[in-house]
């Protein structure tokens, strides 16, 4: 008799748990693994940022599901945009955006268009700076520009890819100061840094995060900051504006989602990223990467990106990236 009761109660308990689990599963979005799409191959700055964010979201319990970073690199960002196009309506796909995918959108070579995007949030801005090697005669941007004005094309600048962030920075400086700089493409940051350290090129632009180690080792010196304000990590370095050059460039990092992203998911992620931005782990991440916290929600992000793209388009057009002969 006792055994029967025991089995019955066990069965009832099991049913209750099963129902609870089912209800729980229905109620709680996200109910399966989240994909974090990155436009660059594993190991790049954007990839590491996504992986770090994903792991903080999991560790702090903000997102209860597993977050998997997927790299859809290729076509200078186009591949990731096409992937997002194919994922329209999927509530479990989120993609990091930064200048790269935004330029790809501008180029118009992807199936995804601006109006297909559901903006979630803007997280931070990476500050950029101009620098040269420590042996160089220049100590600030002003003297570089003075020299360049008298000697057009004599000052060489190492840039990464054509119309990449360094190229746009250099172009804005040249345009604002009315000088001609000899911009030489090095394809990537690593080769450009070596050329500057070796004294083969006069001037470089880049991410503060990537150059900090060199600055502290006194192998390179900062000449000016591309952000609108000075950055806390190097309070003595003047901004371009303070040196009389009306040029600004910052690199935003944020997240967006595909077309027809459900409202409840949008709410969830706005909230999740907000909680994330308040965690100590995230603030530490920003500190070690010298990024500036600039959290924005859905609507603000949309306006911000629209404005950002408008300015970017002017530069990209002027650089003649896709002019055809």
């Amino acid at each position, binding site marked *: 008799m006792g055994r029967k009761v025991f089995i019955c109660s066990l069965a009832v308990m099991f049913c209750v748990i099963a129902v609870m689990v089912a209800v729980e599963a229905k109620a709680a979005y996200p109910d399966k693994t989240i994909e974090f799409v990155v436009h660059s191959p594993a190991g790049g700055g954007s990839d590491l940022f996504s992986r770090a964010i994903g792991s903080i979201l999991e560790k702090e319990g903000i997102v209860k599901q597993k977050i*998997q970073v*997927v790299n859809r690199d290729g076509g200078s960002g186009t591949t990731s945009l096409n992937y997002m196009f194919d994922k329209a309506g999927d509530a479990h796909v989120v993609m990091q955006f930064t200048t790269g995918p935004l330029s790809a959108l501008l180029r118009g070579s992807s199936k995804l268009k601006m109006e297909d995007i559901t903006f979630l949030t803007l997280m931070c801005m990476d500050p950029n700076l101009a620098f040269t090697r420590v042996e160089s005669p220049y100590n600030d941007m002003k003297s570089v520009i003075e020299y360049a004005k008298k000697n057009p*094309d004599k000052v060489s600048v190492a840039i990464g890819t054509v119309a990449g962030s360094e190229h746009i920075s250099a172009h804005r400086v040249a345009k604002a100061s009315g000088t001609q700089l*000899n911009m030489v493409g090095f394809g990537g940051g690593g080769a450009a840094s070596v050329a500057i350290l070796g004294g083969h090129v006069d001037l470089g632009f880049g991410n503060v995060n990537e150059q900090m180690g060199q600055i502290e080792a006194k192998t390179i010196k900062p000449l000016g900051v591309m952000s609108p304000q000075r950055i806390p990590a190097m309070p003595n370095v003047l901004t371009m504006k303070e040196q009389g050059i009306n040029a600004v460039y910052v690199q935003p990092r944020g997240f967006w989602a595909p077309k027809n992203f459900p409202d409840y998911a949008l709410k969830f992620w706005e909230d999740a990223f907000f909680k994330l931005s308040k965690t100590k782990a995230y603030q530490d991440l920003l500190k070690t990467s010298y990024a500036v916290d600039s959290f924005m929600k859905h609507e603000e992000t949309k306006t911000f990106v629209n404005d950002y793209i408008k300015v970017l388009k002017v530069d990209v057009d002027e650089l003649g990236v896709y002019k*055809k*002969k």
Partner: protein
Amino acid sequence: MKKGDITFSVIGLGLSLWLILESQKFDYASKFGIGPGFFPFWLGIILAAFSLFRFIISLKQKYDAEDLKPRLPGWGSLGRIGLIMLIMAGFALVMNGLGFILTVFLFVSIILFILEGDSILKSIFYGVMFSAAVFLVFRYWLEVDLPRGLLGI
């Protein structure tokens, strides 16, 4: 060797012509140095030179012993190779829909059944073994991002 080399040098000539023509679409020089059109253009010229050289040398060459036996195998073997390529192309076409693991099963079973003449049971057996191995190693253990399709696998 003679026939093969003549064919290759003709293909080389064709490619070089195409390179030279295509390179005209881009700037030959940039401000201080070479432009995007420089390299394709000169590659075309160099390829043309090598191809012509090979072509003339081959014409002068006598037929050697290797020319007597055919370089390509018979139609049966070419058919087999075509089939393998077709099956691989089929693999690439269906793997997003079916999911990688199921496709592996079909791929291995079909190759063994059609090309190697194994019995249907044996083919299916090996198909299951292969897909199980791929599942264990790549999906379960290394967590490689292989496409999931039907049945979520």
